[in-house]
């Protein structure tokens, strides 16, 4: 009886230990799950953004073509005063991306310089690039970006719109 009683006590301790282990394992798994969940991406209100030029004039990157004809890039630059509304993320940290969706007339490359608030960068349409990561300390974020767009001249014959947006990845 004593032996079996001691055994019972050990079993009870083991069960309690096992329960506790299961609980911590569940917690650990739930924590791992939580951190592996994809960040929520939200398009940022950029209605305060203004272009300093009415349109971007595209010119041949090289005035003369090559012998085989593959060098048909047209390039154009424009300056845009970016003002995005980050009020919803005030006093939080966030990662802001510039997203240039895939769109007609075909592949578009963009590169840009900034005045320091955002990161300079470059990307191909259909992709996005990080332009800011850190605390959101004010309701609006502003910068002046000088964009350089490149597009295959054989794809275009007339003016066309190019759209991009900024988006926030929420942790």
């Amino acid at each position, binding site marked *: 009886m004593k032996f079996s009683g001691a055994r019972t006590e050990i079993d009870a301790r083991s069960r309690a230990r096992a329960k506790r282990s299961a*609980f911590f394992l569940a*917690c650990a798994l739930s924590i791992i799950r939580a951190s592996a969940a994809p960040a929520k991406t*939200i*398009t*940022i*209100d*950029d*209605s305060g*953004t203004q*272009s300093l030029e*009415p*349109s*971007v*004039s*595209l*010119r*041949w990157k*090289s*005035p*003369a*073509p*090559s*012998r*085989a*004809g593959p060098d*048909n890039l*047209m390039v*154009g630059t*424009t300056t*845009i005063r*970016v003002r995005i*509304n980050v009020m*919803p*993320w005030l006093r939080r940290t966030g990662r802001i991306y510039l997203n240039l*969706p895939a769109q007609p007339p075909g592949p578009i490359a963009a590169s840009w310089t900034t005045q320091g608030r955002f990161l300079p960068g470059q990307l191909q349409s259909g992709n996005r690039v990080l332009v800011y990561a850190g605390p959101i300390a004010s309701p609006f974020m502003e910068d002046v970006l000088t*964009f350089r*767009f490149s*597009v295959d*001249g*054989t*794809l*275009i*014959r*007339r*003016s*066309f*719109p*190019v*759209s*991009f*947006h*900024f*988006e*926030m990845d929420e942790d």
Partner: protein
Amino acid sequence: MMHATLPPYGRNGLRRALIGAALFGAASGSGSAYTVNLSPAAPLTVYLQVGVGSFTNDYINGGQPGNNTAINTVSATVAASVVGNGTAQPMTTNSTAAQSYYDGFTFCSVPGQIYIGGFYRTAGGTTAAAKVTATVPAALTDSAGDTIPFSKIAWTSSGNADSGAEPFPAGTFTSGGAQSVGSMSSNTWNESCWTFSYLNNTVPPAGTFTGLVRYTLSAP
């Protein structure tokens, strides 16, 4: 530790958190895309060089085309002993354009050949080829009014290390009128070297005979 954090997220707390998240999503859902308009401002560019031309540098080094108003000559002096014997007489040029402005390669051999090349740039898909035409007088004339038909001048076409069909092929002048002498596909560089000859199969009066042929590039 975990127990300490869970109770505030009881059923009511969790509901409040979800409502807060829903409201937050609604507040931040006013995002938009910014649009700029891109316009091909200078899509059509043409360049034709017959003889000497002008480029700020070779194309592969960022050179840009320019205007050159020089008029080059091709000429032959026929010895009296061979006049009219049917043996074509090679003509030479005063053009010094031996190098291609594409890469500086010595494409033509001067003074035996004259460079002809160019391109036309246009936006949009491949278009019809640009045409190069020669406007040819009826004849070369001398100071006495004697003539030699322009059809007595022909040319072959080649280029150093070149192969395949020439964009500006061999031909013979058609006296009086405009004739096609080659074409260019859009957005490609085209060049050939012409070697002119006087056919020498008639006996004209002695004299110096001249004539001017004008080459024109017409892009669609």
